[in-house]
């Protein structure tokens, strides 16, 4: 029996005086009861729009213009406002892309989780609470009894995402729509969330629609996959069929984008001494700086690294590990508490105001969020012209010419120059960002998660571009990301940050095979593989209980990862600070285990990629 039937769904966007565009152009699909259907496609392909229409909702500015949506016996689109309200959260529940944005910051979690049940007058408040606590438990949330009393900002992103699922499930809806529930999460968190979702879906036998742009994730969750592009269905089949035998060219393209080719090694002149950028024993943070020069919020702790001329250093770590802070310190936007930064062997002043024009020029930063990194009130031409003028005094025709060159370099049409950032897509903006950095003619570009906000296809194109620029212009990069596969794809060297500490540093290949630092191991293991069943297999090890450990004591900086480390040693990790060890691969790690031990433990892991 079909639980969901979508026929000829059309959604238009834009209001009368502006151009009316069709966002969804006649989409059909069905979902059987208890089945999980994945909607997949690049950003802007209409996934969210379709998902919302299942709840009879269109975002402001959009309207559902045709087709039918049936959920169970209900014709959703013919319902009036009241009817739709009754449908929502009761029959069809929605789990939004960003839980942190979806939760009301001013109300407690329990209040919001139980709201749907109370809203639809399904149970008493007390019963709703009971049920919520049960759901928290089955979603593997910590302290299920009390977590409800917290406010959204008091729990982590991954937990919040699970709480949102609890909110969706509290009414026992017939259908749950997950809209990219893990896209905003770290790989390590993503795994936990995915596992929790999978468990409850299976237990409750809910019919689900799972929206994502990540094929590997979808492979774990879905029974069927619908591939969307430009508002139309390109392919509709079982998971195995779509992954193994894609019928559509676009699907193949998507698959190709995930399987990135190993980059050709660029000849990096290893003998350039000194390196382009060297950081020694850097500590930095935010807030008031105390008498010992330690800031109130200490983010980076004793980080050292080197970037050779023309090479790329990857910086990986979970959210909050201090990656952006590192880039900001180098750019001079955050004061450092301790340590030195050398550019070309010469000390780089900590304060921006003390740097020379040339130092400014040689280090350029490209921020994570393309939207906020471009001044919305200036045209692209202005934005690009400024660094040329500022650093090189280029004006008029010369600047114009250089600007066109740059646009060409980042593969943007020249016509874009007259527009303002608001008129560009995310990928285009990121290219402008990059072009602006290039306009300065820099030696080092600090790329802070430049592809994280982009979908795979566009992201892959940007990475390609970076590699090309490096080949042609010989710039160096500090490439910050939490995505291991990306880092592995384009970096020469890698450092791994955990809670501000550099836990591992080495060549790109250190990520390819064990042994590695336990944290690196966790990261590597958490990257979903493009094969169904990977998640279930992995859960078995990751779900294991950590070895017990006593209270911490001792002097100095203990290993920051010890609380989550699967291979920690009681009496050692919580007493003495770890020492720097060299692994056979040449990588340095900060751990009590030796390379051999790690190798043994990590190769035992059956699903290590």
């Amino acid at each position, binding site marked *: 029996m079909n639980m969901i039937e979508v026929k000829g769904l059309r959604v238009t966007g834009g209001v009368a005086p502006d151009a009316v565009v069709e966002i969804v152009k006649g989409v059909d699909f069905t979902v059987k009861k208890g089945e999980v259907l994945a909607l997949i496609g690049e950003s802007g392909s209409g996934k969210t729009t379709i998902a*919302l229409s299942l709840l009879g909702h269109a975002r402001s500015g959009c309207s559902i213009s045709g087709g039918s949506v049936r959920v169970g016996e209900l014709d959703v689109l013919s319902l009036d406002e009241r009817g739709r309200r009754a449908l929502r*959260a009761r029959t069809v529940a929605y789990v939004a892309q960003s839980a942190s944005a979806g939760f*009301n910051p*001013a109300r407690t979690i329990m209040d919001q989780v139980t709201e*749907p049940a109370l809203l639809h007058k399904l149970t008493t408040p007390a019963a709703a609470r009971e049920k919520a606590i049960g759901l928290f438990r089955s979603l593997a949330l910590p302290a299920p009894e009390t977590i409800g009393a917290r406010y959204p900002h008091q729990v982590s992103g991954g937990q919040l995402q699970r709480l949102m699922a609890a909110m969706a499930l509290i009414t026992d809806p017939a259908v749950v729509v997950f809209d990219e529930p893990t896209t905003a999460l770290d790989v390590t968190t993503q795994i936990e969330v995915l596992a929790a979702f999978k468990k409850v879906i299976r237990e409750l036998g809910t019919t689900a629609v799972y929206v994502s742009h990540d094929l590997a994730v979808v492979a774990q969750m879905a029974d069927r996959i619908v591939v969307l592009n430009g508002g139309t269905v390109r392919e509709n089949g079982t998971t195995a069929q779509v992954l193994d035998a894609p019928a559509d060219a676009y699907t193949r393209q998507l698959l190709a984008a995930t399987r990135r080719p190993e980059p050709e090694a660029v000849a990096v002149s290893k003998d350039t001494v000194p390196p382009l950028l060297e950081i020694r024993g850097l500590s930095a943070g935010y807030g008031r700086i105390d008498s010992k020069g330690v800031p109130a919020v200490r983010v980076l702790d004793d980080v050292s690294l080197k970037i050779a001329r023309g090479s790329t250093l990857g910086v990986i770590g979970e959210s909050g590990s201090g990656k952006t802070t590192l880039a900001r310190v180098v750019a001079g936007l955050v004061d450092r508490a301790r340590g030195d930064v050398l550019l070309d062997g010469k000390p780089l002043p900590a304060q921006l105001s003390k740097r020379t024009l040339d130092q400014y020029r040689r280090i350029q930063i490209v921020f994570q969020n393309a939207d906020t990194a471009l001044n919305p009130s200036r045209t692209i031409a202005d934005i690009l012209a400024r660094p040329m003028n500022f650093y090189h005094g280029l004006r008029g025709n010369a600047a114009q010419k250089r600007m066109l060159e740059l646009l060409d370099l980042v593969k943007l049409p020249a016509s874009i120059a007259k527009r303002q950032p608001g008129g560009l897509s995310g990928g285009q903006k990121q290219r402008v960002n990059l072009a602006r950095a290039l306009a300065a003619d820099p030696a080092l570009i600090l790329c802070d998660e430049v592809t994280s906000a982009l979908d795979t296809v566009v992201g892959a194109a940007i990475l390609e571009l970076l590699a090309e620029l490096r080949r042609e212009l010989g710039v160096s990069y500090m490439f910050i990301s939490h995505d291991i596969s990306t880092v592995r794809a384009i970096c020469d060297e890698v450092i791994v940050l955990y809670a501000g500490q550099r836990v591992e540093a080495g060549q790109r290949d250190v990520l390819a095979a064990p042994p590695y630092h336990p944290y690196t191991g966790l990261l590597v293991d958490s990257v979903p593989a493009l094969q169904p069943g990977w998640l279930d297999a992995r859960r078995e090890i990751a779900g294991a209980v950590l070895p017990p450990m006593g209270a911490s004591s001792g002097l100095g900086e203990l290993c920051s990862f010890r609380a989550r480390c699967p291979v920690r040693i009681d009496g050692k990790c919580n007493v003495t600070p770890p020492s720097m060890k060299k692994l056979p691969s040449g990588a340095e790690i900060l751990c009590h285990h030796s390379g051999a031990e790690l190798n043994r433990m990590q190769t035992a892991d059956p699903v290590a990629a």
Partner: protein
Amino acid sequence: MKAHAQRLIAARLGLALLTLLLVSAVVFAITGLLPGDAAQQALGQAATPEAVAALRHQFGLDQPALSRYFQWLFHIVSGNFGTSLSNNLPVSELIATRLPNSLVLAGLTALVSVPIALVIGISSAMFRGSLLDRALNVLTLSTVAVPEFLIATVAVLIFAVKLRWLPALSYLSEVSSFGALLRIYAMPVMTLCCVIVAQMARMTRAAVLDQLNASYVEMALLKGASPMRIVLRHVLPNTIGPIANAVALSLSYLFGGVVIVESIFNYPGLASLMVDAVTNRDMPLVQGCVMVFCVAYLTLVLIADLCQIVSNPRLRQR
């Protein structure tokens, strides 16, 4: 939360002292520019040079400005607000007789205007772009666009002179019952409401609109919540901070800005006391009044910030 609020209050107290010091200096400086002084003013047409000189000496005005300022400051620190030059009463006493009146007027006006403004602001935000929204917009704008003395006079003409429902003057001595209080305050409060509702309503509208764009609102919609519930249960708790700030700014007007209303309704508040003090060049009194206004303003802003903290769990935590 307590700790955070306490820290905030402590920091604010420090800054408040600085602000008060600045205010007193500013006031002292600009009133120093005024032609004439208390002695001349007290003598009026009868000001002969000798008489003025004698009175100046008596008032201590013959000392250099700076030393007068520091003397005044020194007295303030020891809790002495000085003596009014125009009628020899202690400044603190003069203010003490007027302050409660100002507080009552401001309080009642706040009591009436804030709910009205909130209702207007919220409903126009809820029905953004609708006829109601536009009508409310034009309505509030037109009330604020009419000079307050005109509103007050029209009100008096209608309600006091024509209909005789309300007294034309605010006779505080006759506040014997709640009904009498309502009658006496009805017109001044109404006039002041016309002045301040518009700004608060507009700010409320903006704040609510801002939040209506937040994604948790869409989420609430997808939970099946009705628009009313969304605004009241979801949006409002998040807008308390900005709204409280807007309200605080508007309300601070109710202390010093109400000269006209006070004079038309013959209401003995602080604002007219201060205008008198300026006219009489009665510096200790001017300073005293400004201090009160400044403290009122800072208190309101502090309360607004506390509201923001209480309403925002993130801030509450710290």
